[in-house]
């Protein structure tokens, strides 16, 4: 199975029930840190791109939190996945309860096949989500065969404490992308760290784009 992505515990405890203003402030602090890293790094280095993307992610999430709409956070996550991770087919899902299949909160580009996959393999996918680890799926690794077989390329659980209440499920990537790589791990980790607090603020109606 792919190795779990370490998440800064200081971030994970950032406040399950914190107010929008407090979370926005934390995101702004992180954002400023990423900007500082950026400015200390040559733009010719790969690392610079990572810092730049992390800066854009934190700024975008902050914008979504402050805009306050129930769908804005999910839409921001979808936009980040599409523009910074190069994923053309993804969904933010909620896990209503043990035994229930994931329900789609927001999605982009989801094919009929992938929608059906989320229904028919819902219990198995939910089980994988409840493992609570950010996963970049590699079909060559033991433990990743199932997710690979249903076309899932990455999985970001949205967990309050130890209980996963939802996930960001990534399916196919854009043609120019061969797969998620180490540079994507930090963005996925950031979404895992902040996602639960953000979605806790704005649980609401589902939406599907494009």
């Amino acid at each position, binding site marked *: 199975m792919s190795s779990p992505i370490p998440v800064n515990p200081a971030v994970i405890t950032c406040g399950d029930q914190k107010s929008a203003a407090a979370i926005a402030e934390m995101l702004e602090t992180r954002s400023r840190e990423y900007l500082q890293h950026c400015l200390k790094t040559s733009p010719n280095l790969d690392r610079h791109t990572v810092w730049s993307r992390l800066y854009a992610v934190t700024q*975008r999430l902050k914008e979504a939190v402050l805009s306050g709409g129930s769908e804005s956070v999910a839409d921001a996550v979808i936009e980040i996945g599409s523009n*910074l991770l190069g994923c053309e087919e993804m969904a933010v899902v909620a896990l209503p309860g043990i035994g229930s299949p994931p329900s789609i909160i927001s999605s982009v580009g989801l094919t009929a096949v992938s929608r059906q996959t989320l229904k028919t393999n819902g219990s198995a996918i939910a089980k994988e989500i409840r493992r609570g680890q950010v996963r970049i799926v590699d079909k060559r690794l033991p433990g990743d065969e199932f997710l690979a077989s249903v076309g899932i390329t990455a999985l970001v659980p949205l967990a309050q404490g130890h209980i996963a209440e939802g996930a960001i499920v990534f399916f196919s990537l854009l043609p120019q992308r061969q797969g998620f790589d180490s540079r994507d791990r930090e963005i996925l980790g950031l979404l895992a760290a902040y996602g639960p607090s953000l979605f806790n603020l704005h649980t609401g109606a589902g939406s599907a784009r494009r």
Partner: protein
Amino acid sequence: MPAKILIVDDSSTTLLMEEMLLRKYTNFDVVQARNGQEAVQTALSEQPDLILMDVIMPKMDGFAACREMRRQEKLRETPIILVTSRGEPQNVEMGFESGCNDYLTKPIESSDLLQLVNGYISAGKAN
């Protein structure tokens, strides 16, 4: 006077990254638009030295906006770089047919963006 860049995208995420890179690593002025229609209007009023434009956008897509800009006397020579998630050969070809000068695929790399922009701005100054 600093060069002026118009960045066009319906995604805040992309605009945030592009604007940060251009403001921190160049001395260019940056103006924004959120769709093709707004891009044409802003380009006509702001007369940018270069346009970085997404393709898939509401109201008017990047190809149509590019064609419209090329119909305008004031914008005929302005370099246009299409920045898009659709990097397939047929899309790249459509981009060039619509009149763009270059093509950049998402997710954006810092160095690619800065090199392209600096290259076009330097070439423009040299002319």
